[in-house]
């Protein structure tokens, strides 16, 4: 019985911990498929998955969301991350009609900069533009205008050299972009206020006599097509760290151990007059592996990560709140599967 239990514990470790060794990482791939481990029930069971799965929201601010997903596999968590980055649609400037641009910034550079400005418009209210459609209808296009001219300020002091005082309108900000409703958009969106998310994005600099007069068309697109359509500043995940002390660590060694990890991970308690180290909060650690540089401490600690506990961090650009983005990403993955199911059904019926 004892060797059996040790073997089972070893298998448990291989199945749900990714171990960080001194020179490499072990047990990286998911191995819990049916048939790999005798005595384990590995076939897919929706009920078991639902019992073990949970989502905990840790922190929510205006544009960032940090939440935990426990009980899911790397393949699916990664699929959500990829979809958040590249396949959730947004609206962004695509076509720029330049009527007059006498500024120092070239037309194409100006167009590129305008495209990257995030536009506060809910992409679910719009459709994709048809291929080859040059004009754009009111259901798929938002029109913006930027018309600004720089003049000399007649009230400036004689000897001043401060451009803010000397010139009027010499800095072109994103707040100068105005929405021009197309067709029946005023009726479709009566309370909507379409504008860039941030008002203080500097687009170009002008001097007296220079002017910019452009008309912009925004369309709906996805990040795979061009990065300007990506709705997140970034979306990432990490696995929950799991630090175990294989032997009790005392006194000086405990102090060194505490310094090896991020602050707050290891705490020192006073038991019977001796200082003993204890793992307080492994979640805070960033795993710099400083422990492995100390000969005495190397073998007393096991650094690992829990394989199915993902700490997601989603930061939105402000177009949609981050929890809406996550919900949309999950729905998009469902939509992809449904598309193939429909194709399968239509092919097998022939």
């Amino acid at each position, binding site marked *: 019985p004892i060797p059996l239990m040790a073997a089972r514990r070893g298998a448990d470790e291989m199945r749900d911990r990714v171990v960080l060794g001194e020179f490499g990482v072990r047990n990286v791939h*998911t191995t819990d*498929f*049916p*048939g790999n481990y005798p005595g384990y029930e*590995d*076939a*897919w069971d*929706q009920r078991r*998955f*639902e019992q073990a*799965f*949970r*989502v*905990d*929201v840790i922190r*929510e601010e205006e544009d960032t969301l940090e*939440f935990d*997903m426990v009980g*899911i*596999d790397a*393949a*699916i968590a*990664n*699929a959500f991350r*990829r*979809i958040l980055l*590249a*396949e959730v649609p947004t609206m962004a400037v695509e076509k720029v009609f330049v009527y007059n641009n006498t500024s120092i910034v070239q037309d194409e550079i100006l167009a590129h900069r305008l495209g990257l400005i995030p536009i506060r418009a809910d992409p679910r209210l719009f459709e994709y533009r048809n291929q080859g459609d040059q004009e754009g209808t009111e259901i798929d296009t938002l029109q913006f205008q930027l018309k600004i001219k720089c003049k000399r300020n007649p009230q400036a002091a004689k000897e001043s050299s401060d451009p803010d005082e000397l010139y009027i309108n010499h800095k072109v900000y994103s707040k100068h972009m105005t929405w021009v409703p197309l067709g029946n958009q005023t009726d479709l969106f009566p309370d909507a206020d379409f504008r860039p998310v941030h008002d203080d994005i500097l687009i170009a600099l002008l001097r007296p006599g220079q002017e910019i007069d452009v008309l912009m068309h925004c369309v709906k697109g996805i990040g795979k097509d061009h990065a300007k359509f990506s709705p997140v500043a970034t979306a990432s995940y990490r696995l929950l760290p799991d630090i175990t002390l294989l032997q009790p660590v005392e006194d000086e060694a405990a102090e060194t151990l505490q310094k090896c990890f991020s602050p707050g991970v290891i705490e020192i308690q006073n038991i019977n007059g001796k200082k003993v180290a204890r793992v307080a909060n492994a979640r805070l650690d960033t795993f710099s592996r400083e422990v492995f540089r100390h000969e005495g401490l190397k073998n007393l600690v096991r650094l690992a990560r829990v394989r199915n506990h993902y700490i997601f961090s989603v930061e939105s650009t402000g177009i949609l709140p981050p*929890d809406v983005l*996550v*919900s949309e990403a*999950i*729905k998009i*993955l*469902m939509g*992809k*599967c*449904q598309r*193939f*199911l429909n*194709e*399968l059904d239509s*092919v*097998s019926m022939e």
Partner: protein
Amino acid sequence: IQADGTDGNCVTFVLHDEDHTLGNSLRYMVMKNPDVEFCGYCITHPSESKINFRIQTRGALPAVEPFRKGLNDLIGVCQHVLNTFERSMKEFRAQK
């Protein structure tokens, strides 16, 4: 989507306009099926967005069955994740 294979049991599906996002998650769901002997996917060339998804079943089960089951299971997983996530967001906001 195209299918190609010697008999009904080992089939290679060519999925167009897909990449690792769906490929890896679908591979995981199909591997969890105990009737599947082999399952894998590869991207033939990074410039073309299509994947070769191969399923081999043991026994006489036609390979389309695990494919269909994998897709259905993945939809079930997504639905449950969506419900749990929205419920957790509501609870978090309620107790803030």
